[in-house]
């Protein structure tokens, strides 16, 4: 659990983060959105004390984060920086191994971890491990940056626009992987993004920042139904609301009993994508299958339409 208690950061006369308080529940994904320069990165960097607050405090699992030296705190908190921040003089493998090495892991364990993470992010360990960062594409570098943040299996993971440079296909895959990792390790994730679709898909809770303040901190559904300010409404995009609502849930949750013809949809797919598939196929219903391929039922146009309507 991360408790942020009236934290403020000023640079000279400008207040970059203004009296922010929020509580981040353990094992959840919190997404911070907001315009450029609204203080997202600064807020995030105060959690791992890369930036020292002007006033206020942050508790991690009840302990003030100022209780231990900054570097020790940061070894426990994964951090994928905006950009990617890979070390240009170290190979991909060495980059990922940095924190485990600092923590004194055994070599065999480090090697196994590097391999596991590269594979997870669709990078062949044999081909990419020995390469230098400048020999990678921007998207590959970004994935390595995220892999490095995950290497020591931290309880808390801070990610600053981690998927910005990825193409839609790899991005969707990376998002699924992140959700899987989060479920598997029970990681508490704080993620900054400019992509509202991504925010609604990943978030348990969304924090909207504007000029250093949190203007709304709520679950995605709540935010759709009751945007706190005009700014939030504009950010969400009023015309997108039904579709945003659908991107929150997965097909699994919308599955009904019954049979249907056509190409099956995986239960993990978002309801929004299922709607697209239905419209494109020109059908009223499509079968739903689980991860193992078993038929779970069907998803219907009418069912999705009901879910896309403004909740009462």
């Amino acid at each position: 659990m991360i408790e942020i208690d009236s934290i403020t950061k000023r640079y000279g006369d400008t207040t970059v983060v203004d009296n922010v308080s929020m509580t981040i529940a353990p094992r959840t994904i919190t997404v911070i959105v907001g315009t450029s320069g609204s203080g997202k990165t600064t807020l995030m960097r105060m959690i791992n004390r890369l930036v020292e607050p002007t006033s206020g405090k942050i508790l991690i699992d009840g302990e003030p984060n100022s209780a231990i030296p900054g570097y020790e705190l940061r070894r426990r908190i994964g951090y994928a920086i905006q950009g990617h921040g890979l070390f240009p003089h170290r190979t991909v493998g060495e980059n990922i191994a940095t924190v485990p090495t600092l923590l004194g892991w055994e070599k065999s364990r480090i090697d196994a971890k590097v391999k596991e993470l590269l594979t997870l992010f669709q990078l062949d360990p044999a081909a990419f491990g020995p390469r230098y960062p400048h020999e990678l594409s921007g998207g590959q570098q970004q994935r390595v940056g995220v892999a490095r943040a995950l290497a020591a299996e931290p309880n808390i993971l801070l990610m600053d626009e981690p998927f910005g440079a990825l193409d839609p296909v790899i991005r969707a895959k990376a998002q699924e992987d992140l959700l899987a990792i989060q479920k598997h390790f029970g990681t508490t994730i704080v993620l900054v993004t400019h992509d509202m679709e991504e925010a609604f898909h990943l978030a348990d809770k969304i924090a909207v920042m504007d000029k250093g303040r949190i203007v709304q901190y709520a679950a995605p559904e709540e935010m759709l139904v009751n945007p706190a300010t005009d700014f939030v409404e504009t950010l969400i995009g009023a015309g997108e609301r039904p579709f945003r609502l659908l991107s929150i849930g997965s097909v699994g949750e919308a599955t009904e009993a019954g049979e249907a013809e056509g190409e099956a949809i995986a239960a993990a797919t978002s309801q929004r994508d299922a709607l697209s598939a239905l419209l494109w196929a020109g059908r009223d219903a499509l079968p739903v299958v689980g991860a193992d391929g078993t038929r779970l039922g069907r998803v219907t146009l009418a069912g999705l339409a009901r879910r896309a309507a403004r909740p009462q």
Partner: protein
Amino acid sequence: MRLKIDKLGVVIAALLAYGAFLAPFAQFRANRIVPGEARSILEALPAGLGAALLAFVMISIILIVLKTPTIVRLVLGLVALLVLAVLIGLSAGHLTPPENTYARVSPASGFWLLSFAFALVTADALARLKLSPFARVALLAAVAGAIAALLMSGAWDGLSILKEYGSRAETFWLEASRHVVLALGSLAAATLVGLPLGILCHRVEALRAGVLNVLNIIQTIPSIALFGLLIAPLGWIALHVPGAQAHGIRGIGAAPAFVALFLYSLLPVVANTVVGLAGVPRDANDAARGIGMTDRQRLFGVELPLAFPVILTGIRIVLVQNIGLATIAALIGGGGFGVFVFQGIGQTAMDLVLLGAVPTVALAFAAAIVLDAATELSSNKPGRAA
């Protein structure tokens, strides 16, 4: 096939033609201080050999003027330099009357022009071949080996510079070692002090401008003036610090020379350390902190490795500069190759001046090649800030 003309080749050919046909090849003097008499190639070399050399130069001119393959030019340059080196030794034997130990034979302007022209051809070819750092150092070693072999074989023993060497071989090696100790020792001291100072300047911005300005001012003090300035404080130390005198610390001699070289060396080391560290990508530094490196781990694991090529460039500047500057140490009794240079000037004996100057230049040249290779190797490592 159309023959193409090489532009640089035309210039070099002109040098060669002038050096071979118009300028004197060797100089003969009845003793070491009288003015010399010029000897052309045909006079300076035994019959046949002189004509052969002229023919060789003419063929070379044709090969150099035309656009010949680079490798041909390289081999030509190297072979020509070797031929010249052997022939100048032969001319010494040829020109010196038998049993005469006073007569001196030295290379004259024609020899130097020819050598310079062929060295240009070689250097140009090497630059075009873009040799790897290892190959360049290997070539340097081969050339050094060839020179050593010529020296040991006695092929050059008749030349005036080696006669000067012959009469003071022991002093030569003593001064050589003092020269190297002065140049390398002051470099080592400057690195030991300058690196941490540079790191400090990088971290503490308030210090940076002040320190660099002071070091800049020191650089502008002429060496003689700096020696003068050092006499008083070092003399004081010699008098008042116990054991100082026993370690050779005095107002004049090696101590002020060492201190002066050290002071001159600080600026390039400190400045390049600061520039190198400032060039480390902000993202890399940020990530290093972000994933929990301590300041120390970040310095040694990220900043210094990335700044290393730039720091090495500073060290190269210092080393080459110090090898040259160490010559001045002789002025205040600090020893080194300068001893021969200044003695030679005093006695108007050019051969003695050369005995000091030639090894100094060769040493500086070799140091530059080796450190350039090292710098290139370190910045070639993928991703290093160049």
